[in-house]
């Protein structure tokens, strides 16, 4: 039997195919905190954070609990921002193991999946659960969340203001101090945007040391980077 995950009534593991047809509008995969997912508003069958429709999300957290059932594995994943979130992964019953081996509690994982709500309780249906081999990915995820949500908010402001020239979230010459979150336009100062973007684009899995950041941002003193 299937498990009804969403109001849309997708009751079987093959539901993802039908879901993809319905949600082709939503292309982004947005890194989020569990707290953000819990706070997302549900509008009909879709979810919104900052009035932007989200569907595919990623979270990073610790597996606190893992329960194997015949057709699925139920995890509880904890990222410290709220109570652990239910993450359900459908298993291919023909597969002997391998990809669908149960991830043990105490493991840090990155989950990519769709947000669902059933009887007012939110959960994720995962299409990928990856144990982190390099914990610096956990740090990068934190920065990616903030960057993504700042950009989401900025895009929302842009849309409501109409066609005006706005600086990109990367390098900004405005010099506006967006350190206070109520600043609608650019959530980050120019310097912070640059640092964040560098960290984000860092190709080295270990991330960037402060020395590397300093080398790339010649114009900034070390204290500004910090």
């Amino acid at each position, binding site marked *: 039997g299937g498990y009804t995950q969403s109001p849309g009534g997708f009751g079987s593991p093959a539901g993802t195919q039908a879901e993809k047809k319905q949600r082709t509008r939503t292309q982004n995969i947005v890194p989020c905190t569990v707290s953000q997912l819990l706070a997302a508003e549900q509008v009909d069958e879709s979810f919104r954070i900052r009035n932007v429709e989200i569907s595919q999300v990623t979270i990073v957290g610790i597996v606190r609990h893992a329960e194997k059932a015949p057709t699925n594995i139920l995890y509880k994943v904890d990222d410290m921002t709220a109570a652990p979130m239910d993450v359900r992964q459908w298993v291919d019953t023909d597969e002997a193991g391998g990809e669908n081996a149960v991830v043990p509690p105490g493991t840090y994982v990155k989950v990519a999946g769709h947000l669902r709500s059933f009887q007012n309780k939110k959960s994720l249906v995962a299409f990928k659960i990856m144990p982190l081999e390099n914990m610096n990915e956990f*740090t990068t995820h934190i920065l990616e969340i903030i960057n993504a949500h700042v950009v989401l908010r900025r895009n929302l402001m842009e849309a409501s203001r109409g066609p005006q020239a706005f600086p990109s979230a990367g390098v900004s010459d405005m010099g506006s101090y967006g350190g206070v979150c109520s600043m609608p336009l650019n959530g980050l100062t120019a310097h912070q945007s640059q640092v964040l973007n560098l960290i984000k684009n860092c190709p080295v899995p270990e991330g960037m040391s402060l020395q590397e950041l300093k080398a790339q941002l010649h114009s900034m003193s070390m204290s500004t980077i910090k």
Partner: protein
Amino acid sequence: MGDIHDGPRKRIATAHLAQHIGQPVCFVGRVEKIHPSGKLFVLSDGEGKHTTVELSEPLDEEISGVIEVVGRVTNQATIMCMSYIQFREDKSPFDLELYNEAIKIIHEFHEYFPFG
């Protein structure tokens, strides 16, 4: 697992302990020393500042490297540990300095990284 895991636990560094007395927190640091009793250990954060972590029961294993502690900040600005995990560093070392920078950004941009 106790109740503390069913709610938000704010990520902090040593510098933030004083502002979070009594609150549930999450602290990541490198093991500096372990008390012989096994009921107390000291972690250093990404700025090299030390935090004391207390346990209600002595450690039943060797801990080393980077530890993530969940607990409550005591009146003495130590952390009463409810649970901990060790970060794996078998494939890559963990950049604790970068994590500290991320903490500062989390705090400054709390609207985009809410706890609770």
